[in-house]
Structure formats: C-alpha cells, structure tokens
C-alpha cells in the first residue's frame, strides 16, 4: 500500500483521507477504487449515502481523467449518479473507464458494485485546464499498485453529515448550510465536488422527505458545476418539481449559483431492507 504524498493537499485532517478509499490505476486503462463501508456512511436502510458514493466517483473519475490529460489538469464540469438502493456489503468497488479524452474535455464512466452485484452507474465530464505549479502529480498507470490518501489515524469519528458539518435550516425548502473549512476543500481551494454533491443529496432528502412525510433516499443525481464555491457558507435552495424530484441550487456566499442539480429520492420499502 502506498500513501499518496503531496506537500499541500490534502491536509492531514481531510474528508478524502477519512473515507479511507484505496485506489489503483491498472494497465488496462481503468481506475479501481475500494470504499470501506462503515455505519457512519450508511443510510438507515443499510445502503450507502449517495453523497459518499458521489465522492467516491469524483475521486476515481478525477484521478483517471487527470492521468488521461496529464500534464494538464482538470475541473469537474458535471456528474451524474444513478443508484440501485439496497443494503451494501462491507466494501464498495468502483471501476472507472475513460470514454473520451479530447482537447478540451474528458468523459469518464464509473460502475459501482459490491459482492452482490451492481449498485449503480455514474458518469462525469471534466474541463481540461492548463497545469498550475501546485497541481498534484498523478502516478503513471500501473506504476504504483494500490494507494490511499488515508493516514494511519484517518477515519470518520461520527456520522458523515455531522463530521462534514451540514446544518439543515429549513427542511421543507431544502435549505441547508455548510461552513467552509480545509476539511472539505479541493486542490483549487474550493469545496470538493463530492461534498457539493453531498450537499445536494442532503437538500433533496430533506425537501422530498418532508413533503412525503417519510424518510427517503436520493437515488439519482444530475449535477452541473457552473463555478467553484470558494467563499462560504455554502447554501442550498430547492424546489420540488415532482413528489420525488427536486431541482437544487448551490449558492456561494455572494449568492451566486455555483451548481445546479436535479435529484430523485425514493422511499425504500421495508422489503428492500
């Protein structure tokens, strides 16, 4: 196991370390990731929180896209996630495949599964950026074996949403708030894309669940990243467009819409547990 070392990112206390994901890019051109599933990242039904899976997808897809466009760098343009909600095993495996790497964009597909089979599908598009000196150096495929950002003491110590610091302001309106900290920032000093996705999931679960009067789980995310959230707090507003579907906007401290999303949440019936 290799610990990925970088002088400035991520800091010692960071979400991407605490999730303890292991990665490997193989000579077959695919990126593999393994997420250990603790109680802190599960929904009450036993499925894995969609925000965590989006974060896994973002990490995996970002790593593969960065390798594909190296020495240039990337910014996430959009992320879609479609899940099959069911209790997950002790580990989720993600397999990322490069669909296209062009002059200005890269497209990645990620398959999610556990020992029982498929858990969902995701896709991502990335804008290709000119490299900056402080961008991380990505290892060559097949050169490093399994690696991880986790340090020996890295781990979640409370439920993920509490550890990140989400506060629900008005569940019926899907309004949540998140103060910014180094724990959730990315290499561009903005909120990490998976955390933005997690905010959208929290907002969707709140507005759909409140309207339905029962707990629900987000199963679909269609996210378009318009700009970075660099100044906080991050806030969400949401609008119910169907009983199980919400349009969610993520706004920064200046009130500018940084991300738009459509998300679907469903009641997970007891017989699915």
């Amino acid at each position, binding site marked *: 196991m290799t610990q990925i070392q970088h002088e400035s990112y991520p800091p010692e206390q960071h979400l991407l370390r605490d999730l303890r994901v292991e990665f490997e890019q193989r000579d077959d051109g695919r990126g593999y990731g393994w997420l250990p599933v603790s109680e802190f990242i599960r929904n009450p039904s036993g499925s894995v929180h969609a925000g965590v899976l989006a974060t896994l997808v973002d990490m995996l897809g970002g790593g593969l896209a960065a390798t594909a466009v190296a020495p240039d760098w990337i910014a996430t343009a959009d992320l*879609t996630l479609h899940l*099959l909600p069911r209790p997950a095993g002790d580990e989720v495996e993600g397999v990322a495949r490069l*669909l296209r790497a062009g002059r200005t*964009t890269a497209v990645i597909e990620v398959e999610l599964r556990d020992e029982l089979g498929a858990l*969902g599908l995701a896709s991502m*598009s990335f*804008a290709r950026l000119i490299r900056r000196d402080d961008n991380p150096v990505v290892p060559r495929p097949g050169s490093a074996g399994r690696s991880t950002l986790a340090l020996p003491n890295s781990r979640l110590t409370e439920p993920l949403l509490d550890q990140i610091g989400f506060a629900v302001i008005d569940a019926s309106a899907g309004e949540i708030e998140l103060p910014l900290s180094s724990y959730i920032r990315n290499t561009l000093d903005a909120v990490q894309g998976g955390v933005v996705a997690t905010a959208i999931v929290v907002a969707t679960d709140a507005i759909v669940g409140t309207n339905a009067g029962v707990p629900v789980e987000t199963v679909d995310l269609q996210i*378009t990243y318009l700009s970075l959230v660099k100044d906080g707090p991050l806030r969400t507003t949401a609008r119910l467009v169907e009983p199980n579907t919400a349009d969610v906007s993520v706004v920064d401290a200046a009130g500018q819409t940084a991300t738009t999303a*459509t998300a679907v949440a469903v009641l997970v019936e007891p017989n699915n547990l």
Partner: protein
Amino acid sequence: MSAFDDPDAGRSVTRYLGVTLREQSEDRIVVGTAPAAAHLVDPSGVAHAGVLLGMIDSAGGVCAGLASLPRWIVSTNLVARLVPRRLKGGIVLRARVLRAGRNSVVTSIDARDDATDALLADAVLTSAVLEPAGGPPTYDRPLVLVVPPATKARPDPNSFYGVRPAAAGVELALTATVLNPWGILHGGVTTTLVESAVRHTLGGADLTSVVLHFLRPGRVGPVRAVATWIGSRPDADLLRVEVRDLGADGRTMAIAIVTATPRGILS
C-alpha cells in the same frame, strides 16, 4: 463555404421534428415551437422520448451556438428528466444560457405542453465550442428559423430514420435522411436510437431520465444501439445504452444512462 449554406443538405431531421426557433432579444433565450404532429407522438398521445430529446438538443444547441459566435458548438452531453404525459397542444421549448465559457457553453432547456403549460421535460445541454470548417452559420439577428408544417403525413420516427431490430438491439444505416449539415449522424437521431434500444430491451416503457454523452461522430454506419439492463428499484429500471458505429471499427459514438418505468405507471 459553411456547412450550413446549402439550404437542403442535412435538414431532413430538423424538418421532421418541425421545431421553429426564435431568438428572444434579451437574456440569450431561444424559444422553440412545434405542433403535436401525429408522427411525433405514440398511439397514446405521448411524445416520443427520442423526438422530445431531439427537439431539446436543437433548441439548446442553437441557443449555445449563438452564445459562442463567432465560433460555433457541438453537443457533448445532454442530461434530461422526462415527464411522459399525453399532449393536449403543441410543444414549446425554452432554452437559456446558464454559462458561456471559452471552451464550453451550458444551456438549460424545458419543454412544455402549449395548451396546459405542463412540463414535459427539463434538461441541461453542455456544448463544446469549436471553429467550424467554413465558419459558423450566418443568421440575421434576432434569429428566426421557421420550419413550415408538413404537407403530408409522416411515418413514425423509427420508420422515418430507418431504425430496425438488430442483434441485441437496434440499428440504422447512415442515409442522407439522418445526417446533419456536417454530414454526420444527427444528435436527434441518436436520441431516438437510445429510446428504441431501451424499448427493445424492456418492452413498453416510458423513459423518465436520460444522461447522454456524445463521444464521437457517426460517419460510416451502420450505427447500432444496445441497451443493457442494470437493475430495478422502486421507481424505475436502470439501463445503460451504448451506441457504436459498426463501419468505423465499432467505435463508441455515444453512451446513455437511462431510467424507465413500465408503460402505464405514468400518465
């Protein structure tokens, strides 16, 4: 010479879809209108998902193209939520720019029933900005692209585009009918291929969401679309569709992730 100078080349799909586009003078908005022609709806009166997505791609594409002038755009991915319901009137599309950058333009498009204002679909289209060979299309501004109503009955989309069952999916030949002005497969045909592939796998089904990544142009053909069932959940089935250009070493032209419900759950 611009690929758009010939008034007939690559226009079949646009005329078949019948969307008249009008640029609004403010806020970079393009409004599209299309009659609910018989060939665009299924026997129960619901607009074909592929047709609706093709209209969305057209309206969003023109909106993005205008925002990128003097360059032009090509669609790279379309993310849409569909609300299958019986049409009472025509279809009205409204496309607006969410973000116009140096390399890409993001537009938001919704489609509504003109008679009831009920939502039929909402979507986000991302387009890559490029330097088209021969330059961009030249339009008077504000742009008005009128598609005259069809003077005779048209066949359904699969018949018009030549979509036929094939091994594990559906396919079509790259005839002049299905090309765009650049001589490649029209995005609005790819959307119908995706819908047909899903129906081939699931049987009667309503598509409720589509994520479509346009990866490479279709230049040779035949083009085949195969849908793979991934799993079921309380609200929908989940499928993955891969579209390949068999004449170009089977290279992948597009992939789609689709949710669909059995016909009859929605109305």
